[in-house]
């Protein structure tokens, strides 16, 4: 597990988010080191997904700021420019619970689209790279299929390839296996495990405790919009400091 460097790649500084009077996130700060795999666990409604979505500004935090590779992402975090948003999102890959592949495009085109539109690669280079990534996630024969012709597990692996195509510095996973049968979930988790081994920095919102335990370098337990417990998987799973952590872990592990 020495792939983690000491370099802080992402710094989320005092992120808060409220909808009207309802505070979803209360002053969450997180330093992410390059190569680190962080698992965000916690009960439903704890704010895990909201926090993840604040990192690429799919949700705009009510207060707080982001530093990426030591540089402020936004001149004014509360009123980011379109250009700043686009630049941030091009550096972070995201995988959604419901895959969100583009149904009107083939699998290959799904992976090519942003590469060419963002001016990252020529069409031919983008297609070659897409094929390489499809092979990496074990689906080279699905290139010309439509997403609707793929199973849920296959769609999620394609979605991972699509995000990787932009060579992100960090990958965000929002409950990537929650919509899948346990058996199917394993094929996605394997791709994620392989990715972690390549040294990719990953932040994963998950209910898969075994994945968190085995793959994550650090586990964060969120509850009520705050980080309740934080540590290595061993610390959090075997030696939790908070009573709430114990009851949560008991509930999910005894399912």
């Amino acid at each position, binding site marked *: 597990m020495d792939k983690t460097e000491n370099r802080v790649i992402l710094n989320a500084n005092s992120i808060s988010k409220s909808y009207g009077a309802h505070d979803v996130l209360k002053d969450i700060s997180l330093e992410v080191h390059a190569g680190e795999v962080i698992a965000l666990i916690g009960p439903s409604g704890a704010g895990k997904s909201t926090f993840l979505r604040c990192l690429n500004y*799919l949700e705009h935090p009510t207060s707080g700021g982001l530093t990426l590779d030591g540089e402020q992402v936004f001149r004014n975090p509360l009123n980011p420019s379109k250009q700043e948003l686009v630049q941030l*999102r091009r550096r972070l890959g995201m995988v959604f619970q419901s895959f969100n592949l583009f149904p009107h495009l083939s699998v290959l085109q799904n992976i090519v689209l942003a590469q060419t539109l963002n001016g990252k690669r020529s069409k031919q280079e983008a297609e070659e790279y897409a094929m390489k990534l499809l092979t990496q996630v074990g689906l080279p024969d699905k290139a010309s299929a439509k997403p609707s012709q793929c199973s849920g597990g296959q769609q999620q692996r394609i979605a991972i390839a699509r995000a990787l195509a932009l060579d992100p510095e960090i990958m965000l996973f929002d409950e990537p296996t929650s919509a899948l049968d346990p058996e199917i979930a394993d094929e996605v988790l394997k791709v994620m495990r392989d990715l972690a081994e390549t040294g990719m920095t990953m932040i994963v919102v998950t209910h898969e405790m075994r994945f968190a335990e085995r793959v994550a370098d650090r586990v964060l337990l969120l509850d009520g919009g705050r980080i309740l417990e934080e540590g290595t998987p061993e610390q959090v799973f075997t030696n939790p400091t908070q009573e709430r952590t114990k009851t949560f872990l008991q509930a999910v592990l005894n399912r």
Partner: protein
Amino acid sequence: MNGISIETLFSGIGAGLSITVILTVVSFVAGSVLAVPLALARTSHLWGLRWMAIGIIDICRGVPPLVWLLIIYYGISPLIALEPLPAALIGLSLISGAYLAENFRAGIDNVHKGQREAAMALGLTPTHQFWRVVAPQAVNIAMPPSASYAVSLLKDSAKASIIGVADIIFMAQLEVSRGAPAVLVFSIAAVLYLLVGIPLSYFSRYVDSVVRRKVVTV
């Protein structure tokens, strides 16, 4: 019946068929073009633009087509000599633009919000998010109701005869004024409308079934 045969009636009334088809096709195409900026304005987050679009759409759809045609024909022709056909084309294009804009708007609204989020997360610009991800799916969703609108547009085009456009109905009335029996004449007109309308509605059902296979609800 001084020498009136069904054949001559058919060819007499049928002379208006091409005008009816032109009215339908041209105003559908022009309406589709008009509908795009209208639908964009209708879904804009700028409230001024949005309300302007809502106003235009409501007015175009709320006033009966016949009244529109009369207003445009009598309102504009004194200013710039306007023939009945162009006047009818302008009127029907505006009306179909309003109806199709509502279809396009519904299409845009019904694209799953995860699609736009995925496009955002990939760092696409707002323009690319819309034109490369949302719009192609919105068009698919808007296609079936728009194809069935073409059938009602075909029927609405009959109103153009009021301002003197030489369509099927206009030619039919001409035959009646020459002494042909009205029921026979208008039955022939009905058959001519069905000749175009039935294939059109089959086509719209076909489009619907194709799109149903193509659009995936995420």
